């Protein structure tokens, strides 16, 4: 256990250069944007020259680039991501992201639940009945799943389950507000304030976006579980289990599944990070006011600071989720020395 803590600390230290590198990339991208930064800081060139000069001073734009980078870093570490220029002019970007993030988290939670609850059993059954009809259907389904654009699947679900069979609402808006708002995540707030209507509303409104977003990851997890299960089923200890007279189910669920889930953990963890990227498109289709929607709006209105802040935020969440996966992997697989 002690070794595990040391491993976590070592990984956290190794994270520092990566995070700095990511910040450097967003900084470089920010500065590669054509045109004068003041133009997008203070409204396109309508300012008097004195005001522009002042702005240049305030934002340190007269300093050499590397000093500007340190100013940028200093701002970031104080939680200051800059100011939005056109989506919500003058608003603090950190505030915008903090309000938007719970919606993205909620969507990701639902997608992750679908991915795990459907992906793992599908992979196991597919491997167990190798080359059967079930297996082939699952494999082709997974292949189509990885070939579909997330946003298009969302639109198709809207058409099928929102218009042709009106089961689910087409758009996100209209969830009953819970009495207590602690986390901003409707499902959790609904449980906290014991508001049954919010819980049902949350599930109904997130069902289609979660399926759309989860389909890609679901297919990847299914393929991964299937192949690692097939690999494990060929191991000696499975033959031993069968030889000593274990029932088929006990062999598969007790001996094979546990071992085949170790590599699957990595993929699941990486996919949870990847869901955040896909959320950009899904949130746009379903009009969910999360981080993704924020970024899309910022793209449409050329709000460069907001786009870069959103990109940086998602990248850092992604890095952290990868770290959690690695630690989990080390914890689950005692063969790994840390």
């Amino acid at each position, binding site marked *: 256990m002690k070794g595990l803590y040391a491993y976590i600390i070592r990984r956290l230290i190794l994270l520092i*250069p*990566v995070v700095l*590198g*990511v910040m*450097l*990339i*967003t900084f470089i*991208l920010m500065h*590669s*944007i*054509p045109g004068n930064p003041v133009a997008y800081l203070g409204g396109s060139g309508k300012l008097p020259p004195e005001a522009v000069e002042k702005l240049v001073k305030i934002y340190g734009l007269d300093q050499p680039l590397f000093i500007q980078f340190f100013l940028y870093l200093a701002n970031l570490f104080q939680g200051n991501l800059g100011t939005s220029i056109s989506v919500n002019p003058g608003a603090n970007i950190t505030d915008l992201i903090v309000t938007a993030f719970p919606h993205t988290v909620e969507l990701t939670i639902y997608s992750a639940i679908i991915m795990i609850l459907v992906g793992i059993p599908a992979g196991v059954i597919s491997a167990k009945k190798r080359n059967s009809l079930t297996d082939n259907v699952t494999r082709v389904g997974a*292949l*189509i799943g*990885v*070939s*579909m*654009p*997330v*946003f*298009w699947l969302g*639109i*198709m679900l*809207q*058409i099928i389950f*929102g*218009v042709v069979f009106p089961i689910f609402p*087409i758009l996100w808006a209209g969830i009953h507000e819970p009495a207590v708002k602690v986390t901003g995540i409707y499902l959790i707030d609904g449980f906290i304030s014991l508001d049954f209507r919010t819980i049902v509303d949350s599930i109904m409104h997130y069902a289609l976006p979660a399926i759309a977003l989860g389909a890609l990851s679901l297919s990847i997890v299914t393929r991964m579980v299937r192949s690692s299960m097939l690999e494990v089923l060929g191991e000696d200890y499975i033959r031993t289990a069968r030889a000593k007279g274990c029932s088929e189910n006990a062999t598969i669920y007790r001996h094979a599944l546990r071992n085949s889930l170790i590599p699957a953990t990595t993929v699941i963890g990486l996919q949870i*990070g*990847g869901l*955040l*990227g*896909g959320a*950009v*498109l899904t949130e*746009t*289709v379903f009009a969910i006011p999360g981080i993704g929607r924020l*970024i*899309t709006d910022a*793209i*449409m209105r050329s709000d*460069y600071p907001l*786009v*870069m802040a959103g*990109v940086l935020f*998602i*990248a850092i969440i*992604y*890095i952290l989720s*990868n770290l959690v996966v690695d630690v989990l992997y080390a914890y689950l697989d005692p063969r790994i020395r840390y």
Partner: protein
Amino acid sequence: MADDDRAVKNKGLDSEVFHIGVTDLSSGVVERTRMRRFLDFLSRLKNPLTIIGIVIVIGLILAAVLAPFIAPYNPIKIDLTSKNLPPSLDHLFGTDGFGRDIFSRILYGAQISLFVGIVSVLGAVVVGVPLGIFSAYRGGYIDTLIMRIMDIMLAFPSIILAIAIAMVIGAGMHAVTIAILVVSVPIYARIARGSALAVMQETYIEAARAIGAPGVRIIFKHIFPNILAPILVEMTLDIGSAVLSLAGLSFLGLGAPPPYTYDWGRMISDYFSYQAVTRYWWQLTFPGLAIVFCVLGWNLLGDGLRDAMDPKLRLKLSKAAKKIIKDLKQKQHALKRSFKSNKKVEVVN
């Protein structure tokens, strides 16, 4: 000069026998087994899913090339008399809000998707593979530096980094292509580095170094051809994901500018509205199906190539090839004996 001296000194070496040996080695057997390997490789592509993939990819290429000749309508000509028509024999996939034929637009759209997909993947290979091989070849701190930069680029979810890059360059086809290209560079650098490290353990690399071949020659002549297989597989799979990324970026409004409004992702983005979802389903369905088919085709082809190139499944040598190798061994044996019997051979340092 030194070589001439050696030739003079090795008079004992029977030039004719030597010559036969070398010719057999270089052309005969190698060519014949290569041909066999290729045929064997082709026969392993005969899996139904792979064939579907090949058919789809060929179909797409034909659609893209022949679009001007087979498309029944002009993809950008506005015809307000035939707005929002559902699919019929006249308009196979219906028409859009400007009366443009969706089927024709999809055919033309194949041009954009294939162009961006293939160009961005080729570009990523041209940048990433030499970077990866160079990194493996040089080792040391240069290797660490290059790979750390690649790791940092992989720390972004790819679509997010592509969005940021495309945004900075400014909307347009070149912006999307470059964005997708840059995002896939680290993948190729990593694959190339990994395979190159394995190849560099081989004796022929050591031999090339020993005879003083320059680094560039070793990289391009000896390492590159030997790591081609995994890169080719990755390229095929990557064209599919490049098409997906293009669709996503176009959907966000970062894609092709007018007049290239017939890009598949952009079509969905342009048509997407409450009205279209509730009433004009064909406008949203068919461009998306085109994307799915395109990506699926490249994925199936890539999977098939990977399986076919799997060294675990390499051919067992045919009888003919075995006979050739046996003959060759006998000849080599004879050659050796002629060396031994001829005491005039001197050791050349």
